């Protein structure tokens, strides 16, 4: 690939449209056009220079903005598909059984739902093809930026103050005319431009005034931010960088925190507060009348413990760390972990109170309360009367293999075998007691009658640790800096130079906000005698001016 030598003597890389130094058009197309494409200063986009090997072909593919936009549109369109029906993680199906998911989608959304499931849209954002799409987006961002930022930097640093008239003529804003004293005009223009905070360079009867060049780097800065962000997301796959667990913990329980070995949490109390008409502010009256009670707070009062240094998992050698009320929006934070209030269940049985009744007299001889989560062997009622708890089934499920059985350790349906020892029956009378059911081998004189129960709540918590958060935040900040830099500062350039005879040429370019550029030019023109310019893209301006002036 040979270099292109411009008439001014500068050697440009292959593919250059406008000479990096003087701005002369180098291609036939550019020479013919009335207005030249200034997007990358007419520099050679690197990707277009070599098209031979596979690597170059792949590189060129990702370097194209057209491809980049196509990928953006593809991500956009597929993301939209994912919102048609709820995603897998919002579906109230427990467990991981695929057939249950299929059943759910089919039941609620019919054939379309079934198809949605079968095409994998129900867990779309975790699908391999969506991940690949995001990966391609990242690749495109990196390669397209690299391919543009380097040549752009080169041509902006190499640009010469004095440009060739053919460059000037092809700018969107251009004017030429004879001026009485061109040196005077140049001097005045220089001063005016400096007053407008332009950086002015003067060379051989030519002015280059430039402002906010750094705005040109904005896109590349924000792309860097996006890459940092994507990198952060990627790093969550590294073991130990990311913890996401859930736990159910009942009031009174102490549990080691899943995903946070060595830390224990005790649920002291869970509560739900509501706004009520008498307590809440008067202005909410109408809303409360209309909607009934509105929840104001879900709160888990917890105590956090840590295993002592050097102790082993399971040991009771723990030290108290802190007490904290976890509410929504105020997670418990410690050592990089956060614990969030996410869910709750109420009404799980905690204790049951029975009364021992003499069937004949229908008199109670005493009461006893069983802690369903830690039952005792004996309950002494005094006067030679006691209850021996022989068996306890927390979640009674009928007789299995000739034995009463419990299907879980949770007291959903407690059942007991009592041995009731009374003065009349010192060896005891046996009785099987379940909810709304009492079985006796032989008719007993006494029975344990259910009196009351206490319940407790369980709190659903989520445990998170995310070491990548700061990387993500950094990515976000860099992106914001770049996008603001690129959007709120516009790179403006004004060229003024002497032509042949007493002609003067004026041209201007900005990457955005032509309106203000023209205002700047008008201000310079107030001070310095300069040719009238035209905006080649504003075809209505002429009509505007003439009609406006005739009125």
């Amino acid at each position, binding site marked *: 690939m040979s270099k292109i030598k411009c008439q001014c003597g500068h050697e440009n890389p292959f593919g250059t449209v406008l000479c990096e130094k003087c701005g002369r058009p180098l291609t036939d197309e550019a020479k013919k056009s009335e207005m030249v494409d200034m997007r990358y200063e007419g520099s050679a986009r690197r990707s277009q220079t070599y098209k031979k090997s596979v690597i170059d072909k792949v590189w060129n593919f990702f370097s194209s903005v057209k491809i980049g936009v196509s990928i953006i*549109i593809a991500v956009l369109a597929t993301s*939209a598909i994912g919102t048609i029906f709820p995603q897998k993680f919002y579906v109230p199906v427990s467990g991981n059984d695929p057939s249950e998911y299929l059943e759910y989608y089919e039941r609620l959304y019919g054939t379309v739902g079934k198809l949605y499931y079968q095409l994998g849209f129900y867990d779309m954002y975790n699908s391999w093809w969506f991940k690949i799409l995001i990966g391609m987006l990242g690749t495109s961002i990196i390669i397209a930026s690299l391919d543009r930022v380097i040549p752009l930097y080169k041509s902006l640093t190499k640009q010469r103050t004095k440009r060739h008239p053919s460059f000037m003529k092809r700018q969107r804003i251009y004017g030429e005319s004879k001026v009485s004293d061109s040196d005077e005009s140049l001097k005045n223009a220089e001063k005016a431009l400096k007053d407008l905070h332009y950086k002015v360079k003067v060379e051989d009867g030519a002015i280059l005034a430039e402002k906010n060049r750094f705005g040109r780097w904005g896109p590349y800065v924000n792309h860097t931010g996006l890459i940092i962000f994507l990198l952060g997301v990627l790093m969550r796959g590294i073991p130990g960088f990311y913890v996401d667990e859930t736990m159910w913990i009942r009031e009174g329980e102490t549990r080691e925190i899943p995903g946070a070995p060595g830390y224990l949490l005790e649920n002291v109390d869970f509560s739900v507060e509501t706004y009520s008409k008498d307590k809440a502010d008067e202005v*909410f009256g109408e809303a409360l009348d209309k909607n009934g009670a509105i929840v104001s707070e879900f709160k888990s009062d917890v105590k956090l413990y840590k295993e002592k240094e050097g102790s082993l998992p399971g040991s009771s050698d723990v030290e108290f760390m802190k007490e904290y009320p976890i509410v929504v929006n105020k997670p418990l934070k410690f050592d990089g972990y956060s614990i969030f209030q996410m869910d709750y269940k109420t009404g799980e049985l905690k204790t049951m109170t029975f009364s021992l009744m003499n069937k004949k007299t229908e008199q109670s001889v005493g009461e006893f309360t069983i802690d369903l989560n830690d039952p005792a062997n004996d309950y002494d009622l005094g006067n030679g009367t006691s209850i021996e708890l022989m068996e306890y089934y927390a979640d009674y499920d009928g007789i299995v293999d000739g034995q009463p059985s419990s299907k879980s350790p949770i007291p959903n349906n407690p059942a007991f075998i009592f041995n009731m020892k009374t003065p009349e029956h010192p060896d005891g009378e046996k009785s099987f007691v379940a909810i709304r059911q009492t079985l006796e081998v032989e008719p007993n004189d006494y029975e344990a009658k259910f009196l009351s129960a206490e319940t407790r709540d369980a709190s659903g918590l989520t445990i998170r640790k995310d070491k990548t958060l700061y990387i993500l935040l950094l990515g976000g900040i860099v992106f914001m800096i770049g996008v603001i830099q690129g*959007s*709120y500062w516009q790179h403006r350039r004004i060229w003024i130079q002497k032509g042949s005879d007493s002609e003067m040429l004026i041209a201007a370019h900005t990457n955005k906000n032509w*309106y203000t550029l023209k205002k700047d030019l008008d201000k310079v023109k107030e001070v310095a005698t300069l040719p009238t310019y035209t905006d080649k893209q504003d075809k209505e301006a002429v009509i505007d001016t003439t009609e406006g002036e005739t009125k």
Partner: protein
Amino acid sequence: MDYAALSANLLLVSFIAYLVGTFFFGGAVKVSKTEKTYKDSMWGKIGIVITIIGFVSQLGYFITRWIASGHAPVSNMFEFTTAFSMMLVGSFILIFFIYKTPSLGLFALPIAIVIIAYASMFPREITPLIPALKSYWLTVHVITAALGESILAISAVAGLIYLAKNVDLTKKSKERFWLEAVMFTVVLVLGFVVSSTAFSLSGYEADFTYVDKNGKPSEMTYNMPPLFGMSEYEQVTTDTMKPWFETPAIVNAKTLTTFVWSLFTGIILYILIRLIFRRPIAALLQPFANKANSQLMDEIGYRSVLIGFPVFTLGALIFAMIWAHEAWSRFWGWDPKEVWALITWLFYAAFLHLRLSQGWEGKKSAWLAVAGFVIIMFNLVAVNLIIAGLHSYA
């Protein structure tokens, strides 16, 4: 002082001010032949003064409601949508002082009016905050996001003016069809406002019991004659009409009923307009758009995307992620509202790339700006009302 009542009155004042302001901007456009002359027109000056009065009054609504409720009034559909319209007007005022173009006001104010009217159809009483919303991020995230969206919306207004001026309405074309379709959508929103208001003035109510999609019995009150009944519905109010159809459990028949009534009213309104003026709505607007400078409208359209995009990113994505991490333990959860914010963002990113490197200016750019606004409105309306997710507070 009763801030709540004051707040409602201030909103009404702003609503009227915008109506009057529109009228004056119309005058400004009408009396002047070109941009150059109407820049200094008295009509335009009065128009902007009235608009500012309206804006200040709406700001007053916002502040007094904030004082009354104790939280930023952006916590439900009515509050958010109203705040959005306020910021839309604010963005317009800002742009007006840069570019001095009454045409923009003539189109932006009616859009703000329609949005306020739309917002008012939702429950307006002040509600206390549910636990998930109790955070200062509510204020920060929602206000920034709404501000970003409203600046982006200005680009759609400029785009609409550009299109109304530059699309050839004398010949049948895809562009003419779609431009009219956009106008029809606006009429549809009016249809919703008119039908809702009419039925609520008549005090219509019909109670039903039904079985929801999880198989639980529930109750529902319709405020419009029920065209569609919920799944396995039973009428409680007996003297009202019987629904024509019963819908499957996943369909909210009440929403569907409201939609059909709005559509019905909208179509009638549209037909009436066509019968009276005997021209498409776009053609009615063309004379008002004709005076605008196309290049300037293109510039405003692009500029407002440039200004709005960073604000939107900050509010709707970055602040949103920070809050989501505090409230829901994850910064991103592919909730429909989140996804649609991402879609909006991607769309404007594509817009910027197409404009910067593919040279999509003029009509193409204007169409994209209008499409962007459609996406924003879709996220506001459809995602809230149809696709239920974590964000459905309305």
